[in-house]
């Protein structure tokens, strides 16, 4: 396969970036998208040019590290992570545009690498449960209906990759935040912090400068884990009920 790549190159967070075009002729349709970039980077290094920086880690579709906005869609044309995307999803001779996630809260570090620590700060603001000390409780002591356990698990499969923010026309993080709120709000273990959690996480989300949801559902369509927008409705319910009924409120972002 021969492809043309238009890649966003940016020296660092303070520099101005621009697209650079690369002709890539050593592409097999069995390569993953990241392997294709690896081969290109090898060629660039051999030519004495600087390689293209992009995020990646497990390459198994579970860590949420790989990003890339490919031809106008986060993680490219398939609803998966970029590491699980293969070149057979593209046509021979195709021009592929690769951009970093674009969001004020996700500043570009270099080339295609963005800083997603805004998500970590939202998690720190409320995405935890109290763990009590004491004797070891019996297994299955806390009864949880199967359907609820499934829903909590589905929400918990969010890998925090940021595709929802990248896909959203408003760069809204509500799918991510709602998944993190939901996974605890549904379970008995999440009840002690239930109200303050949603208030703090939403406050932190707004502090980070993410946009507001307009229910286009692009996030759900692009989420590699298929997180449902039903979680956003749940977060809204949780938030409205918490803010009208909670007592001690620290609604300023709890992170740093």
């Amino acid at each position: 396969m021969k492809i043309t790549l238009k890649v966003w190159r940016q020296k660092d967070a303070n520099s101005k970036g621009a697209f650079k075009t690369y002709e890539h002729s050593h592409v097999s349709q069995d390569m993953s998208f990241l392997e294709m970039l690896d081969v290109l980077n090898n060629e660039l290094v051999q030519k004495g040019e600087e390689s293209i920086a992009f995020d990646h880690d497990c390459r198994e579709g579970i860590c949420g590290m790989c990003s890339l906005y490919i031809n106008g869609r986060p993680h490219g044309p398939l609803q998966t992570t970029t590491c699980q995307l293969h070149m057979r999803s593209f046509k021979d001779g195709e021009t592929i545009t690769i951009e970093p996630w674009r969001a004020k809260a996700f500043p570009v570090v270099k080339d295609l690498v963005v800083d997603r620590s805004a998500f970590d700060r939202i998690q720190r603001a409320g995405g935890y449960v109290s763990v009590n000390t004491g004797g070891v409780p019996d297994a299955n002591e806390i009864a949880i209906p199967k359907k609820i356990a499934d829903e909590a698990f589905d929400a918990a499969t969010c890998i925090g990759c940021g595709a929802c923010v990248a896909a959203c026309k408003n760069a809204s993080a509500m799918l991510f935040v709602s998944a993190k709120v939901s996974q605890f709000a549904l379970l008995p273990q999440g009840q002690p912090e239930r109200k303050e959690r949603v208030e703090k996480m939403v406050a932190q989300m707004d502090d980070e400068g993410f946009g507001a949801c307009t229910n286009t559902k692009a996030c759900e369509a692009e989420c590699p884990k298929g997180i449902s927008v039903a979680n956003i409705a749940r977060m809204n319910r949780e938030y409205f009920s918490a803010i009208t009924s909670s007592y001690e409120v620290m609604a300023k972002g709890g992170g740093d």
Partner: protein
Amino acid sequence: MNWLITLFTSTLGRKLLMALTGLFLILFLAVHLIGNLQLLKDDGGRAFNVYAEFMSTNPLIQIVSKGNFFFILLHIFISIVLTIKNRQARGTDRYAVTSGKSSIWSSRNMGILGTIVLVFLVVHLKHFWAEMHFGDMPKVTYDGTEYRDIYSLVAQWFAVPWYVALYVFCMAAVGFHLWHGFASSFQTLGLNHPKYNGIINFLGKTFSVVVPALFAWIPINMFFF
């Protein structure tokens, strides 16, 4: 009172106001349509004139009308605030390539659709509402009572081709706005459950087609028949 400020300056609180005002305006549309359909009655406009006189003089309706104007302005104001914030959230560098494959067109263009509706609203209010309240209206008499003849004013405008075309075009914009807005407001209120999602979607799609179509049918009917 801090929590109220927190609520209404948060993204979720602003969305809540958008949804609630939007739902009120949906109710208003339904009531307005029922009134307008009397234009099609073959009675020389009597039913419509009597109805319009009631709507513009009844004190209770006047209070609701003030509320309606307030909600329209609030809906517009918050949408502007949210749109500015949302654009800022994307950052200074914007995407060079975007794809429309993962969402429907109307959901991404509520601002454009809303602006068309606003332009229509201004023209509409100037021609009918302002004339009815402040203009020099012709009068008709039914059973000894004098009424302002809004019917002939409407009939006069609905005989103007560009006005009918504008009206129909704007009703299409209303339809697309509602196609997304109706169901979206319930999602924002947190009402999303397999038990009733089907009902909301069905009602939303039906409303967004039937109501603007009937609104548009009135000038078409009066123009051609």
